[in-house]
């Protein structure tokens, strides 16, 4: 066993402190009985109860979830299509321009993206609400999906698609039966990325939402401006908990798949 040197202990501690102390404080105060956020008055779960009866928060959570699911799904379809054309389309007129432009929204300040979308929606007379947030989120998250999927497609052995064509599959069938199942992990992680981006977006949602639709980040932001309430702490703790469970599940299943693949390969080696 390697023992940790004092230097490693210090850097490890500093890292954890910077990353987790703010969240830890938030989690602790979410169980505070006092209404004052900074004064500890004993353990209580009453803020969680109040949160569940707060219609405004529940509505906002529902809007956020709907927007995230719909926009990330559309973004995944569009982003995968764009990635496929960019990687497989060969040389066509405007390819360089298109590939440059698909990456531009990644580095574009969110304020500008939000503002330009707002102007567009006003220009075409689209009422702002859930639909406009979905459209806005689809727009910026499809670029991320396209980046993730195209990097997978670049390492994809093209002869697999040729083999499918050679065996009589139409181009559509060869994509559906060969390409898609193989790039599925990248498509799924693209979807997850888009979903997460949509969940925690505040800036673009603020620009493109209307009075009928408020997302959770917007709701939290507006209520914090009136003072941090323990309810917000409780809500944030739930969100941290969900993210933690998600991350742990994902990494466990990846590890499980890797272990199974290794076992399979060992079995194959024994068989030969």
């Amino acid at each position, binding site marked *: 066993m390697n023992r940790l040197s004092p230097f490693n202990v210090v850097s490890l501690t500093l890292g954890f402190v910077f990353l987790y102390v703010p969240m830890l404080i938030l989690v602790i105060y979410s169980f505070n009985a006092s209404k004052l956020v900074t004064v500890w008055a004993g353990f209580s779960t009453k803020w969680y109860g109040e949160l569940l009866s707060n219609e405004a928060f529940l509505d906002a959570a529902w809007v956020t979830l709907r927007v995230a699911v719909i926009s990330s799904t559309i973004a995944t379809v569009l982003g995968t299509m764009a990635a496929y054309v960019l990687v497989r389309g060969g040389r066509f007129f405007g390819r360089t321009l298109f590939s440059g432009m698909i990456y531009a929204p990644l580095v574009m300040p969110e304020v500008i993206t939000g503002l330009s979308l707002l102007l567009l929606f006003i220009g075409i007379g689209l009422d702002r609400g859930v639909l406009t947030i979905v459209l806005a989120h689809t727009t910026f998250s499809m670029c991320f999906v396209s980046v993730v999927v195209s990097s997978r497609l670049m390492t994809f052995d093209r002869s697999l698609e040729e083999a499918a064509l050679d*065996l*009589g599959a*139409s181009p559509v*069938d060869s994509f559906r039966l060969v390409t898609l199942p193989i790039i599925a992990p990248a498509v799924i992680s693209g979807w997850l990325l888009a979903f997460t981006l949509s969940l925690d977006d505040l800036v673009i949602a603020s620009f493109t939402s209307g009075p009928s639709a408020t997302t959770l980040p917007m709701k939290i932001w507006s209520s914090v401006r009136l003072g941090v309430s323990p309810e917000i702490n409780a809500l944030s703790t739930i969100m941290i908990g969900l993210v933690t469970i998600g991350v742990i599940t994902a990494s466990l299943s990846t590890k499980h798949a890797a272990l199974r693949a290794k076992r399979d390969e060992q079995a194959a080696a024994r068989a030969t």
Partner: protein
Amino acid sequence: MAETVFAPWDVPTAEPIIRFRNVTKRFGTFVAIDDLTLDIYPQEFFALLGPSGCGKTTMMRMLAGFENPTEGFIELAGKDIAGVPANKRAVNMMFQSYALFPHLSIWDNIAFGLRRETSDKAAISARVEEMLKLTRLEKLARRKPHQISGGQRQRVALARSLAKAPKLLLLDEPLGALDAKLREATQFELMDIQEKTGTTFVIVTHDQEEAMTVASRIAVMDEGRIMQVATPDRIYEAPASVYVADFIGDVNILTGTVTATGADTYALTWKEGAAPVTAVSETTFAEGQQAHLAVRPEKVAIHTTKPDDVDNLLEGKVLDIAYLGNLSTYHVELPGGQIIKAQTANTRRLSRRSITWEDPVWVGWTKTAGVLLGA
């Protein structure tokens, strides 16, 4: 009763299954295939042999339908196949990387092509079982491609490409990834399967031994052109050019000018002051024409004492010995620096070998041993 020799290329009435007619393929300004005309006959095992970049893979991809000729046309069984997409051609290909679908089992890989043309489950199942049996993979049907060995993968790729009973099977460097022993066994397996199924095979390879072993005919290619098309023994024994002679196997080349000394016998003056070498040639040469004499090392004998009655005899000393176990190749340096390679079978144990480095020796060959080539 004489056995019928399989040689449809010598039969004027035989209908080729593939016809390349003045096919040119350009990628930008690069000419991959240069005005190529070629016939391949049904049930042939045809090898395209050449160094990398000679255009052999491009020819195969044009047959499969992944590339189209820039000029000229290709006929498959009498029909021009330009414009017929890859998925509509009665041609299947075995890819160099095998291109097995990693998410499908061996069974499903083999069934993939069959499912595209029929939904008859019983027929698909029967055909897959037949293919599994042919390639001896019955026990591995449920495995995924990453769960089997390289040699087994190669057999799956073969089974998958044969499952649809194509008119023509293309094999792109099919044995490249196998080690020497497995490779040799697989070559014979391929020939066996080709005979059993009666499918026309076109194999692309850069390995001349592989081409010699499996093929009924070989096309030696260089820079988009075919240098010679002939049976393996003709390619080896009667190469049409110095390039072919040099590409296939090892060869000694003497260059000089020829003088006729008989009806079909020529004397080649290969060095000032040295005795000319004599050779019998089927092709005729003009007086004083430049020519090359190509002699295979195994047709050159090495002697420690000067022998009598040898058509061509040159004196030199042993410069190098390449010991290959069953064979030894002696590099003999002639006065003036020319090196002649002579190969002998090691019928005696090494310790009893009489020739060693720096020994003065004679190398000799008969006048029919070599081929006189114009260029």
